[in-house]
């Protein structure tokens, strides 16, 4: 198997089928909607109180994640991540531009999230725009500090040229837990990004010329050691779960989104949803988020390094797997 894959643990047991005529629509804002009856909600909530979820996982287990990098050839770096049925494709393109006025010796990242109509019919036309802007704003917030990505390495010549990394996220399929998956995909794509090495040559008159190196494999890589991962904790009843499916998200009124680096440092915190949270449960959720985040980082790093060690001759699965 050439893709990196790891499972969160727990045996997946077949879910009992439910009568389709007992359904009621429930909207969760701009996310994909799912129909759940009262009985199903009670089943999910009671199960979570006993640390047993519908597919047999514990409250802190992730579903099986598949990560594959370098799937799109026209980009500087790309990654595709599948978490259950949630499918995200990220492409990173590096382009040269002028640095921002306030930070003349740094490059920067620009995020764009597109919710494709393939994910759910509600995203057709402008429907997915709100969700896309919300996710893009969260990504900006997470990467908004000095330690996530070394922006000084993206500078070519101060005040004149720098690398701008356009990170484009495509939502192909939505099955709950979008933020976590997107952040894993962005981290994998940044790990895969290869920026060509350029040199600035000065003429006698003082005019500058940019020279691209001849060797196509001569490139700089970004260090993704400090890129954080998002852990979304959904409050269901009195407990919280990590990596909620769409059905579990429909039973939860409020979630806490925590962005954790591999050393356990929290870079962003946000409450999502219509409900309110108890202060004590916020503290518990932060601790869980940190614990789960560390494990997630360790697994992701090992998988990415293993995939890279397979070399350029590895068999690519892409969308055929």
């Amino acid at each position, binding site marked *: 198997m050439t893709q990196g894959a790891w499972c969160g643990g727990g045996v997946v047991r077949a879910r009992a089928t439910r009568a389709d005529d007992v359904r009621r629509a429930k909207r969760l804002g701009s996310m994909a909607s799912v129909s759940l009856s009262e009985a199903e909600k009670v089943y999910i909530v009671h199960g979570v109180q006993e640390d047993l979820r519908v597919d047999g996982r514990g409250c802190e287990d992730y579903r099986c994640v598949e990560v594959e990098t370098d799937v799109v050839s026209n980009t500087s770096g790309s990654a595709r991540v599948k978490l259950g049925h949630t499918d995200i494709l990220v492409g990173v393109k590096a382009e040269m531009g002028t640095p921002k006025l306030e930070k003349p010796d740094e490059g920067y990242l620009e995020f764009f999230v597109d919710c494709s109509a393939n994910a759910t019919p509600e995203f057709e036309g402008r429907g997915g725009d709100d969700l896309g802007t919300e996710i893009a704003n969260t990504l900006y917030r997470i990467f908004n500090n000095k330690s996530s990505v070394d922006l000084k390495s993206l500078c070519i010549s101060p005040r004149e040229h720098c690398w701008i990394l356009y990170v484009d996220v495509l939502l192909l399929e939505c099955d709950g837990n979008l933020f976590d998956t997107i952040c894993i995909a962005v981290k994998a794509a940044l790990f895969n990004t290869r920026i060509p090495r350029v040199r600035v040559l000065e003429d006698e008159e003082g005019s500058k010329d940019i020279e691209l190196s001849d060797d196509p494999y001569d490139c700089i890589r970004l260090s993704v050691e400090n890129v954080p991962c998002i852990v979304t904790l959904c409050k269901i009843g009195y407990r919280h779960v990590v990596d909620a499916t769409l059905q579990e998200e429909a039973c939860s009124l409020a979630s806490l989104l925590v962005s954790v680096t591999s050393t356990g440092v929290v870079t962003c915190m946000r409450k999502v949803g219509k409900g309110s949270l*108890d202060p004590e449960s916020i503290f518990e959720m932060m601790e869980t988020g940190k614990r789960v985040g560390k494990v997630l980082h360790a697994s992701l790093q090992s998988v990415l390094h293993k995939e890279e060690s397979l070399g350029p001759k590895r068999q690519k699965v892409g969308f055929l797997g």
Partner: protein
Amino acid sequence: MPGDHRRIRGPEESQPPQLYAADEDEAPAARDPTRLRPVYARAGLLSQAKGSAYLEAGGTKVLCAVSGPRQAEGSERGGGPAGAGGEAPAALRGRLLCDFRRAPFAGRRRRAPPGGGEERELALALQEALEPAVRLGRYPRAQLEVSALLLEDGGSALAAALTAAALALADAGVEMYDLVVGCGLSRTPEPAPTWLLDPTRLEEEHAAAGLTVALMPVLNQVAGLLGSGEGGPTESWAEAVRLGLEGCQRLYPVLQQCLVRAARRRGAAAPS
């Protein structure tokens, strides 16, 4: 005589002169980390809005107006059993539409009105913090519009907007479970990082991390939380949240008095 624009070409982009000023790094003065700036709050000042509120804390001035409930666009017909307390079923619940705007002269640099991503993000944060407090089930197929206008940004703008929005909703007579009180915090950078309550704009600019908490004081439930930056380990964030919640509790009596005064004013103004 008007300038000759054909021969004298000016620059296409304009920047404020402060960018080119010599680096006068005024570090913010040391102060008690738990001090809250004195707050002036007044409700019921706009004649055209159903409910309105003005909040001033230090240099931050926010004006908020609420209109509605009016019929929601695209309100679908739906059935289903009613929720507890005579509330509408989930498909028919009312909606809260929040809008956050910065005046172009609010910050240090002029920002043209369609502020882009940041204003959308703050509007979403406003909505997520106010929804737990408003009984939307009592306004089926209706929408309430809350619009917050930041006149001057003197630090903790989102927290002030949250508080003003909750006051405006209460002034409009919208059914609520509790008021929402917002509080801002910021963390000083590396040597000796401490969390400061209710930062000024200078402290926010020099900060390594910022956090805004929104609390429903009587129910003691956190309605909103938004924070980012290099805040350090989870214990540091937990301490910040506790400090913020305590600040919100201290602010609550001021807002209660403001609403009482507004109600008295309205009672005195009504023709008997």
